[in-house]
């Protein structure tokens, strides 16, 4: 078996005295789509942010594509990673935020080309061509020159997905990508994500969209109180939850 895309071993995260993650162990294979569900405050988003080192892991180990995240291991000791190396690791991991976080002073096109030009040192013309392709892929060709404030929430989130894809990531992280959207706009974002999943992208999605999980995900992980309570095939977990906490949660959201 080849190395999984993400391997997490007993990952813990403390904020001061507060223990948010209490030992998360899981693996995500290449091309797998994993949905993380659970009540708010259960640590889903924190775990996601640990994967691209926006949060520093307190204990345990996390590997992406076989590479330890956030630390260098030398002579049996962990050394904090210089900012430059952390930036290089993040480059290959796309992230989509609940609140989009598009750059408001740049147009949709400039939002997408910014990182390829500055970080990957691509030629501007090449980056623009690629950005136009990506805008077409998310169905927003005609919005290239619009500023984020002139786009609807769903359109902004689709631009944000295109922005992440422009770095040709090997892994995409979605942090409640549809939670800030009006109900009628959720579908257009989920459609783009389904298309991505069909294209073989490895994805970890924190979501409350159980329909999406059932239809698209290969695996479903239910978290509560900083631990993984239950995981498995989405259909099985959703229709036949084994744990009391999973049952209670699902009865509220389904």
């Amino acid at each position, binding site marked *: 078996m080849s190395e999984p895309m993400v391997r997490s071993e007993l990952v813990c995260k403390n904020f001061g005295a507060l223990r948010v993650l209490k030992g998360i162990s899981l693996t995500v294979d290449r091309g797998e789509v994993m949905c993380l569900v659970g009540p708010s405050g259960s640590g889903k988003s924190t775990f996601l942010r640990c994967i691209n080192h926006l949060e520093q892991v307190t204990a345990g180990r996390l590997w992406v594509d076989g590479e330890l995240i956030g630390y260098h291991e030398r002579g049996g000791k962990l050394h904090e990673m210089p900012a430059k190396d952390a930036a290089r690791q993040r480059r290959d991991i796309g992230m989509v935020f609940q609140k989009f*976080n598009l750059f408001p*002073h740049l147009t949709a096109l400039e939002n997408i080309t910014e*990182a390829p030009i500055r970080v990957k040192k691509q030629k501007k013309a090449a980056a623009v061509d690629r950005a136009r392709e990506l805008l077409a892929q998310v169905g927003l060709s005609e919005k290239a020159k619009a500023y984020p404030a002139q786009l609807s929430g769903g359109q902004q989130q689709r631009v944000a997905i295109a*922005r992440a894809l422009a770095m040709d990531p090997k892994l995409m992280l979605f942090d409640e990508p549809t939670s800030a959207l009006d109900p009628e706009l959720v579908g257009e974002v989920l459609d783009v994500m389904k298309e991505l999943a069909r294209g073989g992208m490895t994805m970890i999605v924190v979501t409350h969209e159980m329909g999406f999980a059932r239809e698209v995900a290969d695996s479903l992980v239910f978290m509560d109180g900083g631990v993984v309570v239950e995981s498995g095939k989405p259909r099985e977990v959703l229709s036949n939850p084994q744990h009391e906490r999973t049952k209670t949660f699902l009865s509220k959201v389904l």
Partner: protein
Amino acid sequence: MAVSHPGAGSEAGTPPEPGAGPGVEAAAPELIQAVPLRRPGRWIAAVLVVVLLFLFIYGAATNPAYDWSAFGHYLFDKRVSKAAGVTLSLTVLAMFGGIILGVVLAVMRLSPNPVLKWVSFGWLWFFRGTPIYVQLVFWGLVVVIYKQIDLGIPFVHQFAHISTQNLLTVYWLAVIGLALNESAYMAEIVRAGLTSVDEGQDEAARALGMSWGQTMRRIVLPQAMRVIIPPTGNELISMLKTTSLVTAVPLTTELYSRTRDLSVETFNPIPMLLVASAWYLFFTSVLMTGQFYLERYFARGASRKMSGRQLQALADAQATGNQRGLI
């Protein structure tokens, strides 16, 4: 549910007219043409202000103390315009230094390094807490306090000695004095700007693999500029006028000191004060215009409202779309 559609008439019990169901626009009602309210208070206030203004202008024009002919004579005097040039160069150099130092101090203040943080705070505390006039007098005395600058290894060996008297003219002492004082105010303005940018912006940039420097230059600072520019414009205009205090250093070639010195020729300081004021107002007006354009540039993307060019592009797209539909 009680939903009434214009023209549907079902609420009133009358049968709806054919073709006037939901979704059909009713004929627009007549525009309101009401008799406007009388506002005598407004008229009285306006007339009163205009009369007072006229009396003031008439008084100023006919009062010999203003000596308008001397004003006209000295307004474009070579010596005055040259002094105005000194004032302008002092303003620009001091502001430039103040902004650069201010950005450095703001970044130091926000840094996780406690030493940098506290040094920045201490700097601010001192330069904001003492009067600029006192600071300028101090800078004038600096060449007495520090007679020479020694280059080398402290306490061990010095290989060069530079006399401060030769290095620092009064002009540069004035620039330094103004710039250091300004840096304390600019640091607070820049800090307010940086902290006004949403944390998510920094996270999104880092998630894309951008370095700290790239994130600052390309993402955070351009957005902070919207908050930074208006108070900085204030500071610039304020600096223009503060240069009149450098007589404390003492530098006397700038606008205010020079016009004051020239009043020995007119035996009347009043027209010379007016000459100086006219030049200050001229520069202020130019700076305000510059600020307007700068603010417009950094406001891009801040509003949902589209620019004329964007609206035109959309209209063009609509037109070609329609054409395609026709063919």
